[in-house]
């Protein structure tokens, strides 16, 4: 049935597309806005903070301590993390040294079918990001075998670790420089802040279905 419908639809569309007159000229793309490194960080921080993201600019030595501080002040019990990544290994060895006051590290290492109830009860998730976009201010999540999709969605708090030199000026720049069209993965998500809605009387409220809090650690070399 789907095949017959397909044929009928295409027959009409094909006939229809032959009827239209002049070829359409596509105008030039919008002028590209590019920023230098300092501007990128500033712009990303400003725009994401306006969407109520908590942004910390740190460096390779100190980011882990900033993370500790963030976790301790919230008195979290559990933190899901990606064990097979460099981030995961760093967290593991750091926790091994001293995990007092810190949430339990829960590796996301089995398929969701065996992990769902657990995941839904974990307080926070930490992920890397493939990069970020200065304008309009968003992280690029590029989930993979090693970093499953739900880590940045299900727990109420999402912590993202961003390498400062992976910030692009614009969405188009990110796509073009990284040649996304040649390698789209299962899922790519741009995230600009914690989840929100204004469906009730246009009043903004945060933490509807996605994370209530988004915390970004920008790590400069």
């Amino acid at each position, binding site marked *: 049935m789907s095949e017959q419908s397909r044929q009928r639809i295409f027959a009409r569309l094909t006939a229809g597309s032959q*009827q239209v007159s002049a070829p359409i000229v*596509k105008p030039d793309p919008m002028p590209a806005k590019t920023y230098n490194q300092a501007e990128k960080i500033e712009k990303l921080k400003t725009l994401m903070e306006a969407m109520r993201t908590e942004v910390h600019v740190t460096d390779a030595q100190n980011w882990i301590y900033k993370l500790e501080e963030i976790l301790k002040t919230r008195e979290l019990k559990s933190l899901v993390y990606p064990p097979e990544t460099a981030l995961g290994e760093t967290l593991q060895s750091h926790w091994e040294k001293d995990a007092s006051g810190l949430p339990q590290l829960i590796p996301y290492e089995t*398929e969701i079918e065996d992990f769902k109830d657990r995941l839904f009860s974990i307080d926070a998730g930490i992920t890397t990001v493939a990069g970020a976009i200065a304008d309009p201010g968003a992280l690029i999540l590029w989930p993979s075998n090693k970093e499953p999709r739900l880590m940045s969605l299900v727990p109420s708090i999402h912590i993202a670790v961003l390498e400062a030199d992976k910030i692009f000026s614009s969405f188009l720049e990110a796509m073009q420089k990284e040649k996304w069209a040649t390698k789209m993965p299962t899922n790519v998500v741009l995230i600009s802040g914690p989840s929100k809605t204004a469906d*009730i009387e*246009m*009043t903004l409220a945060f933490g*509807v279905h996605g994370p209530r809090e988004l915390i970004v650690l920008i790590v400069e070399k």
Partner: protein
Amino acid sequence: MANHQPLDFKNNVSRALKDTQLIKNIQSAMNTLVLKRKNIFSDDAETEQLRTLGNATKSLALSKLPELLERLEKKCTENGIRVHWAETIPEANQLVLDIMKSHDATRLVKGKSMVSEEMELNAYLQQHGIEALETDLGEFIIQLNHETPAHIIVPAIHKNRDQISKIFHDNIPDSPYTENVDELNAIARKTLRKKFQKADVGLSGVNFAVAETGTLCLVENEGNGRMCTTVPGVHIALMGLEKVVEKLEDLPPMLRLLIGSATGQLITTYVNMITSPRKPGEKDGPKEVHLIILDNGRSKIYADAQRRQTLYCIRCGTCLSHCPVYNRIGGHAYGYIYPGPIGKILNPQVEGLEAAGVLATASSLCNACEEVCPVKIPIPELIRRIRNESYSKDPTSTVAGHGYKSNWIESLTWKIWAIANTYPLLNAAGIKIMGALGLKLPKVGPLKQWTHCRKAPEFAPQSLQELVKQNGVDNE
């Protein structure tokens, strides 16, 4: 809507105009959306360039629609997304049901999808024993209250918070009565979180489908869309066949236009791009992803060069927000799922003019919609076209129901009007008589409508023609 009864627009309007709370809620919300849009598109020159680009992108994509749909299908299929084609609403509903049945599934969680509303999917599934739960907060609210959306972007905007509080309290077990917005949201979050966890199948719409990569792009602020498309083992995506764009690089400007126009933001919380089901080695995401492409009259609209522009619509809802008519009667009065200016041109073409043609009369042609449409659909021009088709007996017309309004009174009136205005002596004589009578026109028909709230105009004792002659103005 599958219902083909002529719309009782007059009664709908009457009811809406009396509902002062409804109109107050709508106007307040629309005012906010209008200001937000203005704020996010503050650079006129840049906005104009962006809209031109949006229009050209859609125009070009539609000019090769069959080719792009084929490429989309091929790419999606290569990536493991199963593509289905539905010519009609019953077919589309059946496809969803079949997928549910193939998994013995009875619980569906839904992200926001106007196409699913067009299909009346929830009611259909309910008839077959399947719970289809809306998870977008606005849709969730109206579903609890057994209503349809009042606006494309903010479906529950006609409700104020105490109405919503009551809806929650009456329908969600063990929920306290509260009018605090944060608390209401927390109730929704808690309730729906359990549903996400347990759902067998998740359903979503598609904002843009990219032919180049076979990618489905969805935007949202709440996170329920990601929940629906990532947690359950099966994801069904519904799209109208006009939603395909050619390249991934088309997304940044189109998203800027859609999001800026719909909610006045630079970007939504999430931009979700799905290209395949779960791959071996991946730990989550649906193992099955289906894309159902719906026609429901779009391919017929497509065949007409002027009417094709109706299909540029990216469902941003900004034409509604700016429409003086929408702002006075709200969304439900329009009777079909797409209200406002886009509804005035889309519904008559999809449902047929007898059923929905009256909507094209509900416009003063003020052009507020055209001024803001992100893809520059010439809505007033298309309204005039629908009006023309409503009277036209042209046998070559492809509009279903054309000529339904044709009647000898109006035909004759306009013929007389044309004659009077091409034979100026007749015209002048007519005016002279009216002027000499020095009185108002008789209060029948249209004039009766006019004088319900206005004093009737009076013919001037001397027309401009006469004054001009008296004043010795040259006529050549």
